[in-house]
């Protein structure tokens, strides 16, 4: 049974009288425990797809099911609850609150899920231990390096034990070495059985994941799936073409 099921998802924006089709009929199944990347150039609609998958946005049409529950027409309140309990986000710019300490930042999702302060503290420390940030719990984000900030953000994404973790260009703001460490961390999370989805424009990063979905002009242009062994070479070609285009 798929964790996430997308059927014919459309998303259109109206910008100054112009209609932009950000997503144009996307259908996709994501199973529990998968490690997936969504790649595509900027403006391809990959971020929109992640926002819809991440319940930050609702599709204009189409159906979206998570855990066999229809969520494409959920209220903003229900979406907030899903984001809180079932989804963890890791962003390119870390998105930590500068006024809070590392531990308080990690506690943030639990404030909205109604945990007691004692429980919040314990679980935040567990999550920080998981990303080796335990000794920095009292620091503020401004006192941390980029990699440390991103690890804090991962701890925050993990703290409510979500069904799926979305990472939007998680290495985009890091040097390549730190970026590798962060990707390794996602790999570990995947090995622990978590569902992780990376959104990136970088084919090298996408290469880390067993399953790769390419988005172009709001449509799934190609999909590399280890289960579809025959199609893999074609995917490699696309990646090469892509890297030429970006460089």
């Amino acid at each position, binding site marked *: 049974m798929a964790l996430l099921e997308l059927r014919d998802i459309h998303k259109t924006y109206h910008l100054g009288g112009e209609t932009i089709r950000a997503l144009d009929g996307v259908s996709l199944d994501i199973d529990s425990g998968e490690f997936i990347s969504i790649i595509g150039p900027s403006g391809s609609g990959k971020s929109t797809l992640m926002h819809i998958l991440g319940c930050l946005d609702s599709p204009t049409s189409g159906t979206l099911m998570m855990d066999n529950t229809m969520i494409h027409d959920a209220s903003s309140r229900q979406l*907030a609850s899903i*984001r809180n309990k079932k989804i963890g*986000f890791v962003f390119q710019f870390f*998105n930590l609150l500068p*006024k809070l300490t590392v531990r308080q930042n990690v506690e943030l999702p639990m404030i909205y899920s109604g945990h007691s*302060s004692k429980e919040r503290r314990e679980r935040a420390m567990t999550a920080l231990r998981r990303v080796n940030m335990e000794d920095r719990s009292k620091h503020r984000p401004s006192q941390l390096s980029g990699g440390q900030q991103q690890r804090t953000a991962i701890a925050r994404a993990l703290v409510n034990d979500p069904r799926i973790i979305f990472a939007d260009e998680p290495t985009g703001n890091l040097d390549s070495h730190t970026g590798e460490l962060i990707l390794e961390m996602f790999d570990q999370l995947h090995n622990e059985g978590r569902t992780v989805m990376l959104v990136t424009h970088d084919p090298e990063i996408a290469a880390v994941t067993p399953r790769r979905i390419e988005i172009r002009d709001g449509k799934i242009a190609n999909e590399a799936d280890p289960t579809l062994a025959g199609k893999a070479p074609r995917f490699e070609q696309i990646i090469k073409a892509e890297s030429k285009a970006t460089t």
Partner: protein
Amino acid sequence: MNFGTVIQSGIKEIGAHWFRSLLTMFGVICGVASLVTMASFIKGKENLLRESLAETGGLEKITVESEDDLPDYQKHLEGEAKGVTLKDVYALQAGAPMVHDITPSINKSRYRGYLRVSRKGRGARPWMLQGTWPTALEIQEHEIEHGRMFTMMDDLLSNNVCVIGTEIRNSLFDEVDDQGETIIPIGERILINYVPFTIVGMFREYMSDEDRKKKEAAKASGETRSLRNIFSRGSDSNTRRTQFIYYQKNNAIMVPLNTLVAKLDSSYETGSKLDRKLSEITMKIEDVSLLSTSLQQVRNVLMRTHKGLEDFEFETQEEFADDITLAIYNERISGMFIAGICLLIGGIGIINIMLSSISERVREIGIRKSVGATSMDVFTQILIESVVLAVAGGLAGLAISPILVNTLASLADDSTPPIMTTQAMLIAFGFSVLIGSLAGLFPAIKAAKLNPIQALRYD
């Protein structure tokens, strides 16, 4: 979302920008402090006025006076008009159960006719010499501090006894003797229009609480200068009015009605003493809410004894009470208006700061929403922050208001002493909370409406 956590984060948010928060709160602080201060001064004034109303007998007192000027249709009967008499008093006692303590009196003012009070070469200038019955004590809210009131027996026998106010004592004797003891002139003889009278009682000294404190303080420090100088003279009409009532009461002399008529009244008339014209009849009604009914009853009785002649008129203290209510109402309105403007400005300050703080925190709101905050959570957070600002401002305002009140009171030494009430403080505080909530509403709605995706992209 936990309410305590929200308040905590609100306080933290305010602490993070404490100087800006202080400036924001300043409006509310001023508003609350000015509201409390205003209310204290108005309350002080109101109490003073109510006190003076009570000192003159309260709302229950009705006075019936002789009226020489008859209504037009009775003008031709002017010769028959006798005014109020003792006959009326007895008739009212028998026929008007809604009033009690019906007290006749003949008043001799020092301004009308000859009145001289003296003792061993020293003279006094009484405000009024009153020939009356012992019930006058209660009607006029007098209190005997030393000796006794004269009795109906004194009245019956026309005894030469009198009860005096403390100012009369001060003029004829002194307030204190050489040893510094207060003089109590009970049993002493004085001359009223050269007729010897024995002092049987003396009233207590009437003065405002404020003056009493001053006097005690002066006494304690051994101050010998004239006490009159330390009394507040009253810089406004209301204070003067009250001071004047105290002055009148302290300068009163009372003698039995019959004594006055028999021994002191030069216009002694022949005929039954029941027909003697009185200055006034005072009485009290049982129930203030039945004022008009009681007045009608008294009127009915008097119309009968006066054979239809309207040679009397009523005087109630209602007008005085209405004056007080109106004066207080006016002051309240203007006071509230000023304090209201202060609070309004405070509220606008909060709106301003909350709005600018929201545009600074769009990204934060986006992050909070992405980790599961609902629009309601964001709304509550912003609203509570502004309420916390207002509450903190309100508390600070309450804290400084006693200082403000005392400073103003000491600057204007002569004015009515202010009275701070819990009620005023609660109202002021309540208003600050209300203003905080209202001011937070608009920014909170704006924040709650933010789209998480756009908010996350915001820089």
